[in-house]
């Protein structure tokens, strides 16, 4: 069914269609509308779920850990400082291999206090064993929320997934969305049936200590599962596309006019929409411009990026976060894996809700056309 909805509501619809059973919540701007809407579904009886009204984000994610360990499909949402408060629990969720799905309405970290969008919250946590997907539209947010459960609960994966959407510039934007039928979502996403769960009749221990003689083996298992999940993310994307008619690239990356591109931008989230318009303008002028939209930051889709950048002369990397004292983390990752003949420059953009304008992106393209492009902050 087609309707116009705010992207936060689209996420809530995704969670409802996924038949979330437990929803611990501690609302924080700009993720609040997601929580409010799910609370409304629970209140009206549209969603049969246990809503746990907790006292902090740390408790929200802790409750989610307990709920999934008890065998329930569990969802939560947060932003910024709330995300930061959850940090301690992030590696616990992934280390215990609990397929929690969490929407992160990306927002800058204090100080100075700032409620607007950048990626400094989630990107700072990229090493904590969560699959990180970044979306661009309300529809993609809805669809990815459903996909996220299928990826997380896959027997080869069993890892938590973050669905990242830009605070305000996506969460509060109204767009036309196509709401899938419950029947079809049920067929795509069967009920969560874990092999091990907390059960008083069949006691098991969750979250024990691992001594130096086994801790590394558990971390290696997590690393292997993360790498394996690259395939699962692709598979789930194509299954979803077949059933609902909406592909998002290959699930890991999406490309725009890359077939013959010589100069391209790579970015995550809503900036990609602006970048497409800039690419079109440049194409009209006869320039071979293109865009790579990175959907999946962790696990890092090295092979897909190598393929996408084949034949490319230069790449401008947009980071909406900076590893203070070094550079943009995406830029650093890409330099580590891409062909050394490819010219690259890193641009720090859109921190704390600063608009990333078409003018900024034109500047990036004209910079990377130079013989020796230099990265900069797009102030």
């Amino acid at each position, binding site marked *: 069914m087609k309707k116009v909805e705010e992207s936060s509501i689209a996420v809530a619809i995704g969670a409802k269609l996924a038949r979330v059973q437990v929803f611990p919540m501690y609302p924080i701007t700009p993720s609040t509308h997601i929580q409010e809407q799910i609370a409304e579904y629970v209140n009206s009886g549209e969603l049969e779920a246990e809503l746990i009204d907790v006292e902090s984000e740390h408790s929200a994610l802790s409750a989610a850990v307990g709920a999934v360990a008890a065998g329930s499909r569990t969802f939560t949402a947060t932003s910024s400082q709330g995300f930061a408060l959850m940090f301690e629990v992030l590696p616990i969720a992934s280390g*215990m291999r609990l397929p929690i799905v969490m929407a992160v309405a990306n927002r800058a970290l204090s100080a100075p206090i700032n409620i607007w969008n950048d990626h400094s919250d989630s990107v700072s946590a990229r090493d904590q064993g969560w699959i990180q997907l970044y979306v661009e539209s309300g529809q993609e947010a809805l669809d990815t929320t459903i996909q996220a459960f299928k990826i997380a609960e896959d027997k080869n994966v069993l890892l938590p997934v973050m669905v990242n959407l830009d605070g305000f510039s996506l969460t509060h934007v109204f767009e036309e969305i196509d709401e899938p039928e419950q029947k079809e979502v049920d067929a795509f996403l069967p009920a969560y049936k874990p092999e*091990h769960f907390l059960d008083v009749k069949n006691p*098991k*221990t969750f979250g024990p200590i691992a001594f130096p003689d*086994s801790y590394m*083996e*558990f971390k290696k298992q997590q690393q292997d599962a993360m790498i394996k999940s690259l395939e699962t993310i692709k598979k789930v994307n194509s299954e979803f596309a077949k059933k609902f008619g909406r592909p998002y690239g290959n699930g890991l990356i999406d490309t725009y006019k890359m077939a013959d591109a010589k100069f391209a931008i790579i970015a995550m989230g809503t900036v990609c929409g602006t970048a497409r318009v800039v690419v079109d303008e440049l194409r009209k002028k006869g320039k071979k411009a293109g865009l790579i939209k990175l959907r999946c930051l962790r696990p890092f889709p090295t092979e897909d990026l190598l393929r996408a950048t084949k034949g490319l002369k230069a790449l401008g990397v947009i980071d909406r976060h900076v590893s203070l004292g070094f550079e943009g983390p995406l830029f650093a990752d890409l330099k580590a894996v891409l062909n050394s003949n490819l010219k690259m420059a890193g641009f720090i953009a859109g921190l704390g809700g600063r608009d990333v304008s078409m003018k900024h992106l034109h500047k990036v393209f004209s910079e990377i056309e130079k013989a020796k492009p230099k990265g900069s902050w797009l102030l």
Partner: protein
Amino acid sequence: MAKEKNKREKKAGQKLTLGAVILEPGSTRNYHTGAWRVYRPVLDNSKCVSCSNCWKVCPDAAIKRTPEGKFYIDYTYCKGCLLCLNECGVKAIVKEVEVK
């Protein structure tokens, strides 16, 4: 790698399950914390007034009772923290240096 994994699992005494879930309830019994002891608490039943303070505070549940109600220390699990000694109001518990 597989061989190394088997070796690790054998040493750890159980299978390395996903997420470190322990499938066997009560497996902590196989873990003998008594090996950690530097000091050995010794309980003198002639002084003990059976207040059960030590029994309550022992973090390893190593203070036990005989069917006749006498308190004793299970040295398989007593790790030598000496909480019991500190909590005993009548000084029925003294410490000795552990000699192995």
